[in-house]
């Protein structure tokens, strides 16, 4: 070819296209059937559109066709990692609606269960986050080693490892035996040592720090504006924990602190969860010291247990919320005086925390999107409902 025919246009910058990739619904690290519609420029993310609903069961409609008591086992299936926390929120909302009192021992049992659930959730979430980071299952299995012990307790107390269905309006389903309490004490005693080991494996690891620090920074004002709750919010440095704000159940009796993050990146979300577990251990220690023999369910409520159809809360509405390990788990209930709720709504933290997914991901690499999603901590059962 003659040299003169080479035109100047050939040296122009390359004409590149963006690449649209669907991460999910079948993907190893979308934590279930969640889809991220990611547009990539090379490896850099241009936009992220979350697509959900693959696990949608219309939980709210199912609940509106059931009695109040029969919804309880369905709440287990929302966030199937912490069914006790879901039970707690629902029981709280119904108790608010029907003005039911809860005896002291039941309150203690509830707090113990809720905090054990928090340990289960946080420890496994960190494990999953590390899996997303590419660690080959080691942190997950260490986490599951501890989780198994707590699940054994759940099984002994409620009858099921994950779908506990343990809380009842006005108390809990069954009493906790002293042997079980002793077992919980043992677990709680050993847990800090496990956390130390876990931290030795992870916290200072240079690769983890490289990957997580300054990735997915969530500024506090955006976090508040986007209704982010839970560890994700606190990692951004906003001091808001419903256990402290609402002081529901008997949380005001325990002294515990709320860990707040520094920058609001993935690393802070990881470390805030570790610190939260340490605080949970403190609550558990105090609760196990404070628990006294007594009624585990209010005598007035026992009648509803046998005849759920006789349970008719007065006409009205209630919004009960708890600090579930994922964030604010709220139940909005409207009663029309019949045994079935007229309106039942779940404010699921997994869904609402995802609002900022795109803001966090854009400009980062593909690998970062995965860990940002992992650090937000979603559970599809709760997200899609």
């Amino acid at each position: 070819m003659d040299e003169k025919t080479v035109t100047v246009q050939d040296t122009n910058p390359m004409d590149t296209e963006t690449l649209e990739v669907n991460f999910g619904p079948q993907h190893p690290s979308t934590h279930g059937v969640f889809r991220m519609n990611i547009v990539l420029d090379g490896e850099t993310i241009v936009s992220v559109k979350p697509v959900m609903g693959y696990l949608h069961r219309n939980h709210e409609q199912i609940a509106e066709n059931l009695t109040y008591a029969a919804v309880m086992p369905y709440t287990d299936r929302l966030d199937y990692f912490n069914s006790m926390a879901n039970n707690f929120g629902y029981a709280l909302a119904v108790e608010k609606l029907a003005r039911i009192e809860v005896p002291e021992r039941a309150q203690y049992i509830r707090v113990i269960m809720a905090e054990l659930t928090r340990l289960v959730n946080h420890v496994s979430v960190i494990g999953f986050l590390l899996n997303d980071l590419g660690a080959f299952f080691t942190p997950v299995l260490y986490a599951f080693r501890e989780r198994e012990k707590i699940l054994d307790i759940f099984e002994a107390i409620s009858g099921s490892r994950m779908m506990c269905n343990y809380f009842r309006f006005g108390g809990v389903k069954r009493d906790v035996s002293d042997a079980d309490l002793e077992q919980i004490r043992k677990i709680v005693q050993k847990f800090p040592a496990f956390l130390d080991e876990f931290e030795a494996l992870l916290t200072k690891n240079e690769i983890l720090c490289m990957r997580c620090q300054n990735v997915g920074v969530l500024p506090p004002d955006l976090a508040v504006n986007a209704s982010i709750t839970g560890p994700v919010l606190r990692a951004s440095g906003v001091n808001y924990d419903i256990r402290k704000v609402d002081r529901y159940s008997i949380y005001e009796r325990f002294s515990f602190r709320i860990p707040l993050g520094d920058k609001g990146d993935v690393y802070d979300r990881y470390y805030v969860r570790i610190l939260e577990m340490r605080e949970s251990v403190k609550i558990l220690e105090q609760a196990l010291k404070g628990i006294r023999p007594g009624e585990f369910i209010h005598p007035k409520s026992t009648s509803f247990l046998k005849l759920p159809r006789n349970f008719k809360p007065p006409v009205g509405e209630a919004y009960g919320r708890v600090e579930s390990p994922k964030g604010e788990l709220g139940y909005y209930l409207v009663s029309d005086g019949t045994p079935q709720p007229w309106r039942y709504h779940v404010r699921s933290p997994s869904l609402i925390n995802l609002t900022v997914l795109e803001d966090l991901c854009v400009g980062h690499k593909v690998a970062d999107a995965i860990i940002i999603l992992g650090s937000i901590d979603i559970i599809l059962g709760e997200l899609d409902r």
Partner: protein
Amino acid sequence: MEYLDQLFVFAKRLMLDLLARFLPDWIVLVASMVISIVAILIFAPLTMMYLTLLERKVVGRIQNRIGPNRVGKFGLLQPIADGIKMLTKEDIVPFQADPVLHFLAPVIIVMPALLIFAVIPFGRGMTAVDLNIGILYFIAVSSISTIAIFMASWGSRNKFSLLGGMRTVAQMISYEVPMVLSVVPVILVAETLSTNAIIEAQSAGWFVWTPWGLAGFLIFFLCAVAECNRSPFDIPEAESEIVAGFHTEYSGIKFALFYMAEFISVFAVSALAVTLFLGGWKGPWLPSWLWFLLKAYALIGVMFWFRGTLPRFRVDQLMGLAWKFLLPLALINIFVVGFWYFSPGLWKWVGSLGILGPSFWIFTKLNRSYVPENRVYRLAEDENNETVGA
């Protein structure tokens, strides 16, 4: 002892002697090659099969699990069961994939992995081909696998595969550079490119016991891990990000071939690291080939240990590590070995360490994004705030 040490050499010689009685010379020559090739072709897949088992066992133990133990005693037949499963699985070619590339890639990827075995000195006098440019041959051949991986990723017609392929090419080419440069000191000291001669040069002491040897070994080993796409450098097949990278769309025997190539090259690079820095088959009491295998398996064990412990790098950090950290260190290492060669007595040690240590420190400081930040966490109570550092 001598007999045990030369067991395989004698066996081959015996066979050739037998053949030489009846057959012409050129057939004996061919037979000599065939015997070596057959030995490698048996040894390499066998190693690969049992490395998969070993990896699963080691990682299992790290994770407080038992690992495979159902097929045979201690799961010893597990690789065979896996092999049968792989062979009988349906071979799926994606719709509109490039069938030729898709078919050829797994075939091509196994070849360089096997070819490397030709220059590996398994024991005293146990090198299949004692090339006088052995190291160069190794580097040249091992870089071919990049092409096969890119063929696989392109031919699959899958976006995950494509991403994986792009990552592979970038990674493989980047890590080749510090890897080769980290070998240069050894070549300078040994004054040869032949693998056997390099081992002989380590008669006085393994190269790894010198400052430049240690630095070179670490650089070489890290690059080797990256070359094999092993954790923590496994971004081309990062499961949590791009499903399985370049072999997302492979099933059955083709997938098995990718797997085989990976494990064979794991063995090959470990063997080369042993040859270059750990004295090869040299060692007291035990037969030379056993020494060699023990050292190689120890390095492979470290790779499994990495896999059981470490998260993965991100693609830009991975490239940064190669170009901004390992490459300058490898260059300085070449300078250090010159210093070592020409200085007398204690000065060698003081000078080498005096150069390597500060330069390591300087490069970590220059790559500030790699150094973990210190974070301060507030623990808010109602009344007072307390801080903890992490």
